């Protein structure tokens, strides 16, 4: 027995994405954002996309190119604060934005990845953040029902990977990546370090191969994956 191989060209991997697709995109700020996959998605031009991401990067970077290119219908995020362009698009009605508390977004994605339908918590109880959500009582106490999130596609960036799809993330580039890598029907991972199968420490793998459908070995890391000077 040997483990299956899942290496694809970046063109073939991103070509799996259809118009109208829902897509999770890893990253929190620059770290962990799959800039190369995003650039290829801009090049291929799929339209009417729904994106799920912690943030909208900054104006002129990362998923902002998808926004500027008119490819995105809806964005589910926790915070847009660093991208004035995205805020303008939201305020002008050019972009539908749904906000979610950060840890709740993380858990909704994880629930999707874990094959659960949702979870209950007391986060947001008594504030407008719980409005419109189903309330579930347990032992006389009220909780908010949060539904699981799954998407058609997830795009993630790993520091290291192998051809079976095992992924390791670097430092704070981990963030939403391992969660999103569980929670989509088609998971595409990019990495600048695609190692031979067996070279990753089996005790130190963050995302095990079965969750990953396509592995893209990057020749060059995108120039936007760099230090941002403000």
């Amino acid at each position, binding site marked *: *027995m*040997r483990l*299956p191989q899942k290496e694809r060209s970046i063109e073939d991997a991103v070509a799996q994405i259809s118009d109208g697709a829902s897509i999770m995109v890893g990253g929190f700020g620059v770290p962990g954002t799959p800039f190369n996959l995003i650039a290829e998605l801009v090049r291929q031009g799929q339209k009417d996309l729904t994106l799920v991401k912690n943030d909208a990067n900054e104006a002129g970077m990362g998923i902002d190119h998808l926004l500027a290119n008119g490819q995105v219908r809806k964005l589910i995020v926790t915070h847009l604060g660093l991208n004035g362009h995205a805020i303008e698009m939201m305020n002008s009605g050019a972009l539908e934005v749904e906000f979610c508390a950060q840890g709740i977004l993380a858990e909704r994605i994880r629930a*999707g990845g*874990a*094959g659960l339908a949702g979870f209950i918590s007391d986060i947001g109880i008594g504030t407008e953040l719980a409005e419109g959500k189903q309330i579930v009582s347990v032992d006389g106490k009220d909780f908010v029902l949060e539904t699981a999130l799954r998407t058609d596609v997830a795009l993630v960036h790993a520091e290291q990977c192998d051809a079976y799809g*095992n992924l390791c993330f670097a430092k704070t580039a981990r963030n939403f990546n391992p969660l999103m890598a*569980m929670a989509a029907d088609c998971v595409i991972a990019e990495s600048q370090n695609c190692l031979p199968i067996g070279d*990753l420490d089996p005790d130190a793998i963050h995302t095990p*191969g079965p969750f990953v459908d396509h592995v893209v070995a990057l020749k060059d890391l995108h120039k936007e994956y760099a230090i941002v000077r403000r």
Partner: protein
Amino acid sequence: MSDARQRMVARAARAIEPGMLVNLGIGLPTRVVNYLSSDMEVGLHTENGLVGVGPTQDYDHADRDLIDAGGAYISALPGGAFIDSAVSFAIVRSGRLDLTMLGAFEVAQNGDLANWKIPGKFSPGVGGGIELAQKAAHVMVLTTHTDRKGNPKLLERCSLPLTAKGSVERIFTDMAVVDVTPEGFALKELAEGVSLDDVIAATGAPLIIPEGDIPTF
């Protein structure tokens, strides 16, 4: 293992297709690993926490920290990954498991499976069986065609508490390969030396018999 059981296990192994992720349940299904070729591309999942199960290890080569869900000492393939119990079942419940092969006390003609409890006699707990049976993309059963007393295990309906409803697609026994179809059990293959009448007599529900020659294994 008897010849009949070895043939059954070998036949079941042929149901595993390249590229699959497979969980082999405790008991007979675990034996299937010995019939997979060394160059086959396949990932084996054991629910206690490994993707990429390799061959079983004897005591002299055993690692105290490396067992399968049945407690057998195993190895890990290159590229294998250790996972915690939550991630292990996340793989199962989220549909990433292509196939599980499980043992059975009873299988009903509608695909219901009972394999965890005989009230008053045997109830050591369900372990990971429910989630495997309910969520693997394909669920197949490996079992002797009858129990130790000769009573059929393939039935019109299960009498024991269910593990999962309508989940079983195919059954490999020491006598036959039987599919679960919308019309009920369909005989697909006969074990060598077993007659059609033997199988019909040992089955507790109607069997749809194919026209023409029945393949053997």
